[in-house]
């Protein structure tokens, strides 16, 4: 597994965009259009499913083609992009829990610094069908937030950006998150989704995590102390 580094957080600390917060689509959306993100997901599903077809064929359970694996990338341009396809292959989108129908983006007016207020602009983009939305903004130990920490948009239009700005004041170095809980209203139904906006204060050195200890069967274990009684 890969260790999280402070550099990772720095890279995303200035601006960001959340494509309704679904796995794998996130990074794709920062770099490409929404359509591209869709294609990445589709390709993943297609190629993963194709492998399933091949397996079915091997089992005699029937398949769509005599040789699905060779039939797949048929258009010239697509075939020429075989390497690209392999990169895209497994970027399927996960099946997540129900959540608010809203994207958020954000921008910080500079790098957060100890003792210096920094403005954070949050942009909410409601999806189709959303009638209203509100958002509660929270900080954490080490960061003081100022401004209106509850954003209320009584009537919204899908796809239109709604902006809200708060100020954050770090009192020490570290990795922090501003947490935004957006709640959308679709007729009488409200749903929430929580977003974490990351930022780094000061310079953080990447720290190597110690590997968890193994038990006698070779299983990595995270030990937690029990409350024990006789």
């Amino acid at each position, binding site marked *: 597994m890969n260790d999280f580094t402070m550099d990772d957080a720095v890279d995303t600390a200035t601006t960001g965009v959340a494509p309704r917060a679904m796995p794998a689509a996130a*990074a794709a959306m920062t770099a490409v259009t929404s359509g591209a993100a869709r294609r990445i997901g*589709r390709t993943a599903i297609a*190629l993963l*499913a194709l492998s399933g077809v091949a397996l079915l064929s091997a089992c005699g359970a029937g398949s769509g083609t005599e040789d699905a694996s060779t039939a797949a990338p048929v*258009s010239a341009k697509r075939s020429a992009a075989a390497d690209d396809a392999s990169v895209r292959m497994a970027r399927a989108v996960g*099946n997540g829990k129900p959540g608010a129908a809203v994207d958020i983006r954000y921008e910080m007016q500079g790098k957060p610094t100890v003792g210096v207020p920094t403005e954070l602009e949050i942009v909410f983009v409601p999806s189709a069908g959303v009638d209203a939305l509100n958002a509660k903004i929270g900080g954490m130990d080490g960061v003081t937030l100022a401004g209106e920490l509850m954003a209320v948009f009584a009537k919204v239009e899908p796809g239109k950006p709604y902006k809200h700005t708060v100020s954050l004041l770090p009192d020490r170095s570290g990795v922090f*998150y501003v947490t935004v809980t957006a709640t959308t209203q679709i007729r009488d139904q409200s749903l929430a989704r929580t977003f974490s906006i990351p930022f780094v204060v000061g310079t953080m050195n990447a720290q190597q995590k110690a590997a968890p200890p193994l038990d006698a069967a070779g299983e990595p274990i*995270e030990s937690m102390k029990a409350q024990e009684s006789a």
Partner: protein
Amino acid sequence: MAQPSTLAVWAVSLLGLLLGGCGGGSGNTGGIGFPPPSESVVISGRVTFDRLPFNSAVGTGLDADAPLVSPARRVVVEAIDETDRSIIVSGSTDEAGDYSLSVPQNRTLFIRVKAQMLRGGAPGWEVAVRNNTNAGALYALDGSAASSGTANSTRNLHAASGWGTTSYTGTRAAAPFAILDSVFDAQALILSAAPSSEFPALDLFWSPSNRNVVGEFCPDSGSISTSFYAGDGMQDECTVPGTMPSGIYILGAFDGGAGDTDEFDRHVIAHEFGHYFEDRLSRSDSIGGSHGPGEQLDLRVAFGEGWGNAFAAMALEDPLYRESHGGVARDFGFDLQADSQVAEGWFSEFSVGEILWDIFDDDNEPGDDVALGFAPIHAVMTGAQVDTDALTSIFSFASALRSENPSHGPAIRALLAGERIFGTDAFGSGETTGGQALPVYLEVQLGVPVTDVCVRADAGIEDGNKLGNSRFLRFENDAARRVTIRADGAATSAAVGQAATDPDLYLFRRGAVAAFGESSELRVEQIAQIPLEAGVYVLEVLDFALSSSNGPRCVTISISGS
């Protein structure tokens, strides 16, 4: 709640058996019947965990100050030698959380309870809760080391929530066991219909660092976007991207009372288990992506998510889905027993969820004369739904359910009609709800082009999983042949739409992709000369360039072949 038939079966590890055979320890004494060696003593006890329950009023979150002390059911328990850390003997708790291990006398040891349920054979399962931010380490609750002495003794172990007065101040040891406990209930539902079920291995990944970090997706660092199920082969977006382990990922960051933690949200866990069930024991053609009740979704997504919601309600025997957020302070919920009337139809996860729940439950409110329980639902999900020629949707499910339960056919139809679903077969033939997304499937025949196949973004475009983002065509191939499939960007009039500039094609045979075309060529896509066996295929059409501001986008579909 029906429970598995093997309630008191003790799983003895191979190591335990070997040690017992050598006289160095014993298996446990809970039911298999290994007599304890004369030099042995029995350590028994109960394993419990704190469950933070929801406050009675929806919206008010969890009652962290009044945890329910709950039995850790059927979890792995080990006696560990303090000196060399060897596993002396292994067993498991029963449904009351009780365990009993036979161990050597005067051995300094501690009791370890793993967040793991193990059972080989049929029924069988292998479920574990792991920390994705700690190299996938398995959570374990450890007691204190002490001599086993010369007489039988009791060691009760409790996993505390870690809650202080206003926030978590201690180790959140209860979380992995609360998650496992929800899986226990979900498995029990399956076993009530199929007592010999063999569940493929399932890992659940939870960490206090799991949060939805905007713009990041790296489970190793806790950036998991949301609680979700990942099948095989999904890649992360870490600095060095890699294939992430399949399983259920669960949010856990409290973040000073602003975060979203899901370990006590039983419906969330069971919902995701429902996706695992579909993936491993049934079939799902869902393309995943963001969703919520009230949205108009791709029919595959609507069924998958409605299934998840309904499965959770069935497993927990509670149609009120609740999910906490704001630390533990708030929650939202929706009731599948109530008729929400929001965006009703075959594209609504609400409609699907309400229908499935009404099929299952015993209540017969007006419009609901069905009370089949879970077994017929399970039969369809593991039978006809797997083999359907159509995409998996409420149509394929309901069609099979009617076919397999003909005496309930009219009542099932009435239930669907109550959600404005009128399609008469697996392909939704005759459906009248859905406006521009109708018919659910167009028909395409060899040598007969179909014009004005249009995709649109009226219901949204996020993740490409909203109603109308794709169109589907049914193609019945009456003989094995090579075919060429083309999509040409075109619309017969400006009133219909505009020509699609970057169409894509996916051809499915019973949910598996038989072929696809994704080139970037302007206004055309082609899948050339592919060999197809005889059978029914589904062709999905979309436009890569569709956006919220430019639909509808149309193509002409043609299939040629010898």
